[in-house]
């Protein structure tokens, strides 16, 4: 008995028996198809949302920011002297006027550019300023930047709707504003706007560019000036408050941030930490989707289980025939397992196909939303991995579900069946 003959015989029997019970096996296939379809559609929706959100975050935000807070622990003098822990705390330290800043920022920027994971780094200064135009005021999250360097970290120029970002460098005391601010204050490129911040010197700024990143939280609050303008406006001459960094791979952000903190001694923050709240929501959504899809596939698996158990019970006589003409227990086991695999494979392939169609049509659904992100249609995104998972989970479920019926079938004793028939 060659293995090939075994496989040929088994598949001949398995396929024919499946085909002759199209309705029952079709129902089993349908259960699997539904599970895989939901798996693909749900994952497409979840990935669509999280991907849109992540790309919105990464559009115009740096992957890692180094702030001006030094991390080196400063232990009390007394403790350093006595070399044992000392309870020395001042009840209320009065804050000093000495402003914190990153020391020797350009050396750090140059060093950062040598780090292999870093694509670009740019020094900047951030602060809140009030803008006044035509009797209306609005507070703006102002960033003083080195235009060319910053544009490599966060490509602002891509989102400029009118004016030119480069004009920040050429026209003295100028500002680029988010479209939301410009709209609120009624500003256009070429207008002059009054800007002021506590502790600094008020300036009249020329609006040279208006940008719209389609990320409402940024478009409604962000303004850019040159570093020097910001330093004057905020009253912090020569200060660099942050270094923004772009990585080759944003997924590395947490790891790179940790090593940069150790390297330079300044507090850093990766985009994942900045947006931890949202990312946690996505992680939770993924879990919920996992439960739902798992439950549906489980139901599909029970479908296969129920139908195959029924078939095994009905087919006792046929199993007895096959055993009496020389098929082994393992052959019977493999016939039913093969049927489970075929059911789940067909179900998986159908589910993949329908899933692709579902993703296409979901992506056409019109949905107007302007919150964290701005969109006109339902957000879906497909990933080839969905289809691999679809087939993979279907097969897993199919094999596990047909194990019990297959085992039962293989334990049928031909003599008992024959005795029962003949009496």
């Amino acid at each position, binding site marked *: 008995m060659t293995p090939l003959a075994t496989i040929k*015989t088994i598949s001949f029997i398995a396929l024919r028996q499946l085909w002759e019970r199209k309705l029952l096996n079709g129902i089993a296939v349908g259960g699997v198809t539904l599970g895989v379809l939901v798996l693909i559609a749900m994952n497409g929706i979840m990935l669509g949302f999280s991907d849109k959100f992540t790309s919105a975050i990464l559009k115009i935000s740096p992957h890692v920011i180094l702030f001006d807070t030094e991390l080196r622990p400063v232990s009390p003098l007394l403790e350093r002297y006595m070399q044992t822990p000392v309870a020395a705390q001042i009840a209320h330290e009065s804050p000093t006027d000495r402003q914190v800043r990153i020391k020797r920022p350009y050396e750090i920027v140059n060093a950062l550019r040598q780090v292999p994971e870093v694509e670009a780094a740019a020094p900047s200064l951030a602060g809140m300023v009030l803008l006044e135009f035509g009797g209306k005021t609005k507070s703006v999250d102002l960033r003083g930047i080195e235009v060319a360097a910053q544009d490599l970290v966060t490509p602002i120029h891509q989102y400029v709707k009118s004016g030119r970002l480069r004009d920040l460098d050429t026209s003295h005391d100028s500002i680029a504003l988010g479209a939301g601010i410009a709209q609120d204050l009624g500003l256009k490129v070429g207008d002059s706007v009054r800007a002021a911040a506590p502790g600094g010197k008020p300036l009249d700024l020329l609006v040279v560019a208006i940008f719209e990143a389609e990320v409402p939280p940024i478009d409604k609050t962000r303004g850019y000036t040159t570093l020097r303008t910001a330093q004057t406006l905020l009253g912090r001459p020569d200060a660099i408050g942050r270094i923004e960094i772009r990585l080759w791979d944003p997924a590395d952000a947490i790891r790179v941030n940790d090593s940069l903190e150790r390297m330079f001694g300044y507090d850093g923050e990766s985009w994942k930490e900045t947006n931890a709240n949202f990312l946690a929501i996505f992680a939770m959504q993924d879990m919920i989707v996992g439960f739902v899809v798992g439950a549906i596939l489980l139901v599909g698996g029970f479908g296969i289980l129920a139908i195959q158990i029924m078939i095994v019970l009905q087919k006792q006589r046929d199993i007895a025939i096959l*055993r*009496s*003409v*020389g098929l082994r227990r393992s*052959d019977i086991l493999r016939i039913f397992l093969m049927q489970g695999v075929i059911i789940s494979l067909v179900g998986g392939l159908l589910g993949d196909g329908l899933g692709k169609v579902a993703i296409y049509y979901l992506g056409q659904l019109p949905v107007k939303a302007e919150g964290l992100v701005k969109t006109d249609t339902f957000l879906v995104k497909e990933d080839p991995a969905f289809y691999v998972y679809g087939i993979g989970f279907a097969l897993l479920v199919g094999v596990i579900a047909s194990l019990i019926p297959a085992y039962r079938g293989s334990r049928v004793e031909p003599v008992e069946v024959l005795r029962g028939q*003949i009496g």
Partner: protein
Amino acid sequence: MDRSDDVLVETRNLTRALGDGAAQQTILHDISLSFDRGQFVALTGASGSGKSTLLYLLGALDRQSGGEVWIEGVEMGALDDDDRAAFRNERLGFVFQFHFLLPEFSALENVIIPMMRRGNWSRSEAEDRGYEALRMLDLHELYFRKPGQLSGGQQQRVSIARAVANEPSLILADEPTGNLDSKNAEGVFQVFANLASEGRCTVVMVTHDADFARRANRQVRLKDGRVIEDSTQHGPTSVGRA
């Protein structure tokens, strides 16, 4: 106990009991028989006499509680489950009362499944052999039909074709004529008689039909799990040794 070359099947003190302890019930007591190559043996006896059980033991379908079953020099009790399946596949042919055929497969496919499993022949060779077996039973024109499209007698002949196509040394038939009208029953009986007389195989047939039992080479009658009569009607026989 010497065995001559033409002894095909031999049982020695074969015992079969069901259940344990007080509920134990002995179905076969110390059966010692031997059948020659080419012999046509009728096994008779009332219901519950143990004749079917003896047949299943001869067919390596059941396991004995004691004693030995030798077929062509192999002791069935010494074989594991897979080896018994392989032995059935290569050396034995079964015919049951209820013309056990697989309903999803055509007559020809039913006949060739054991050959496919054996793997000695290509699919087309197996189909040629299966077709020849059906021709011998005058069913070759209906080879494509499924069991549901065949009469009871035709189905029984298909199951005989399945049993003989693999060229077994021993054919075991459990009341093969039990559900057939007299014309079909006679046809089936003749097929077995011919197979045996041509020396192609030994046939052991359980039957309730006294006429058929008389016309076989040899009649073994069982009662309550013991041989009560072992008679040779005609032709060369070897007498069972008790």
